[in-house]
């Protein structure tokens, strides 16, 4: 069993290097890696018995596979496969498949590892792969954005390393369990690193511009899965550290509220989606019980939306009401938007409902308010009319969107995911009449807010917080705030 798991973890890297030698097979190899990850995710959802592997002695690498990471693995496999399908086999850039495989492998490693140093190494590899995917050396802006991403990421991980050293000093090992017994300062340093990698609150200010400037397929990977490589271990650590639970709740809510305001006032569709990622990931990290399902629902829908922006003629939302979209773009876009907004029968609703069952009255109220904001944000993607073809007119030829189709199917089938595990009662309680009515009420309130915002939008100016110094400063402020918050 251990051999099988290690083989599965190493396979993407092995095939990535092989694909450098055999570029023609790269696309098939990458799809095969996605298939193995999907199988691993399904196996863990069916049988969430934890498997702990300790390699090279007590101070070596430890891996933990359990039900918690199953949805993250499914998400990683599905989004990577969709991106590959969408890009097509006959593309002229062989390094893309190589990088997708390395990214898939490193995200898998970040999800399963159970000690701080393996996590550090996995996150650095994720950063490097994402950097290479973003950077296009013929475009100045793309190089600048990639450089920013790499510098912010490695600064955050240096803070993380200082935290690791202090955990080792106080506990004698780098395991996640040691984090609970460490000092407040060390905890704050570890958190700064992970919060920045998962793009939360003001330490996630790097995210909107990076995700908006990257090519659409890369944005889908970044917003869908790359941030979960930071968020999943963050939730894991907060689960093992009781003193962190309150801090994570308020940080998540702060991130959700802060980013929803920016998303409401945004005029560019890719930036709107990126701000909404900051907001949704904030909601995902609040509760360890629902983190996986929430990230799965959000990641599938967000990757789908980013892939669809490739087929839209304009990124400026103001021009959307006059821009008819073909049915194959408009329908999946509306469905994915509804899922994130929390419409029943889609996986986004299930995640949001289960999250609210875990929380007290005040956080539930805040989550509901932010859900109204989110619904208003996603109503804007409904603005463009569906293209009507005159009788006899042949639609413009375009390849069938296999990747988008895969994600849409997963969004609907994702509803059954909790049924695979043991706790199907949680699933049954999510479809009560009261909850369904509340979800529809939130959607209606979102629509009203959307109408209300339309005349106000040009008058409100938000500060530009995305210059390089703001990103580094945001990290410093976050660290200081965490020390104050945790010692209080």
């Amino acid at each position, binding site marked *: 069993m251990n051999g099988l798991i290690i083989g599965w973890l190493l396979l993407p890297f092995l095939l990535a290097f092989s694909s450098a030698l055999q570029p023609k097979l790269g696309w098939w190899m990458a799809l095969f890696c996605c298939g193995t990850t999907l199988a691993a995710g399904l196996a863990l959802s069916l049988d969430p018995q934890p498997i702990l592997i300790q390699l090279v002695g007590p101070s070596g690498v430890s891996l933990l596979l359990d039900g918690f990471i199953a949805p993250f693995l499914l998400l990683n496999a599905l989004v990577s496969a969709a991106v590959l399908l969408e890009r097509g086999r006959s593309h002229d850039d062989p390094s893309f498949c190589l990088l997708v495989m390395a990214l898939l492998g490193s995200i898998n490693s970040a999800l399963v590892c159970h000690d701080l140093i393996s996590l*550090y190494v996995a996150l650095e590899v994720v950063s490097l792969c994402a950097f290479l995917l973003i*950077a296009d050396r013929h475009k100045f802006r793309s190089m600048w954005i990639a450089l920013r991403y790499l510098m912010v990421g490695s600064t955050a991980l240096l803070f993380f390393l200082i935290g690791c050293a202090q955990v*080792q000093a106080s506990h004698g090992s780098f395991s996640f369990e040691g984090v609970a017994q460490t000092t407040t300062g060390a905890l704050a340093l570890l958190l700064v690193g992970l919060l920045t990698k998962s793009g939360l609150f003001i330490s996630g200010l790097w995210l909107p511009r990076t995700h908006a400037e990257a090519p659409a397929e890369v944005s889908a990977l970044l917003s869908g899965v790359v941030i979960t490589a930071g968020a999943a271990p963050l939730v894991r650590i907060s689960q093992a550290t009781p003193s962190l639970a309150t801090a994570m709740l308020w940080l998540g809510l702060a991130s959700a509220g802060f980013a929803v305001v920016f998303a409401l006032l945004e005029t560019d569709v890719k930036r709107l989606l990126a701000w909404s990622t900051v907001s949704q990931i904030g909601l995902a990290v609040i509760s360890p019980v629902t983190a996986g399902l929430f990230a799965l629902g959000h990641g599938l829908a967000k990757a789908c939306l980013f892939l669809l922006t490739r087929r839209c003629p304009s990124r400026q939302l103001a021009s959307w009401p006059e821009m008819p979209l073909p049915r194959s773009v408009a329908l999946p876009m509306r469905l994915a938007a509804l899922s994130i907004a929390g419409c029943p029968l889609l996986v986004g609703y299930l995640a949001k409902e289960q999250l609210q069952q875990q929380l007290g009255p005040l956080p539930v109220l805040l989550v509901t308010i932010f859900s109204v904001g989110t619904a208003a944000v996603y109503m804007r993607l409904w603005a463009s009319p569906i293209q009507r073809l005159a009788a006899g007119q042949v639609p413009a030829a375009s390849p069938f969107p296999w990747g988008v189709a895969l994600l849409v199917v997963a969004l609907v089938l994702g509803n059954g995911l909790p049924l695979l595990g043991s706790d199907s009662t949680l699933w049954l309680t999510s479809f009560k009449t009261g909850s369904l009515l509340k979800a529809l009420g939130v959607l209606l309130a979102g629509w009203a807010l959307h109408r209300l915002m339309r005349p106000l939008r040009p008058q409100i100016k938000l500060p530009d917080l995305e210059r390089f*110094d703001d990103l580094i400063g945001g990290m410093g402020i976050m660290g200081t705030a965490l020390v104050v918050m945790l010692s209080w």
Partner: protein
Amino acid sequence: MPSLTPALLIEALVLITALAGFLGLLLRRNLFLKVLALDVMSTGVIGFFVLLAARSGVRTPILVASSSSASTPVAAFADPVPQAVILTAIVIGFSIQALLLVVITHLAQREPSLQIEALEEAAEA
């Protein structure tokens, strides 16, 4: 209040180095100097790990064949685990520095001053 031992003094200096690197990253206006500040910060972090390893001793942890029993160490050895860990981090940090400098040479072709404001303006245009 702990008394000021040499180890504590070195620890403070090492952490000040990391902090100085971070401040340089924040306050320097030139991108090249910012990347160097990142290197200063990572030097501080590496120093911290080396210091951590030296708490149990400073001798190189090499097994000596002549030592009679494995349970009683013949000398105060440094802890090999933090050293092994930081070796990985040094390699990763070095490769990232190299990558950043390559990107900077690309950016310098268009914006030779490498002033952060100028770069941001050029990227917005």
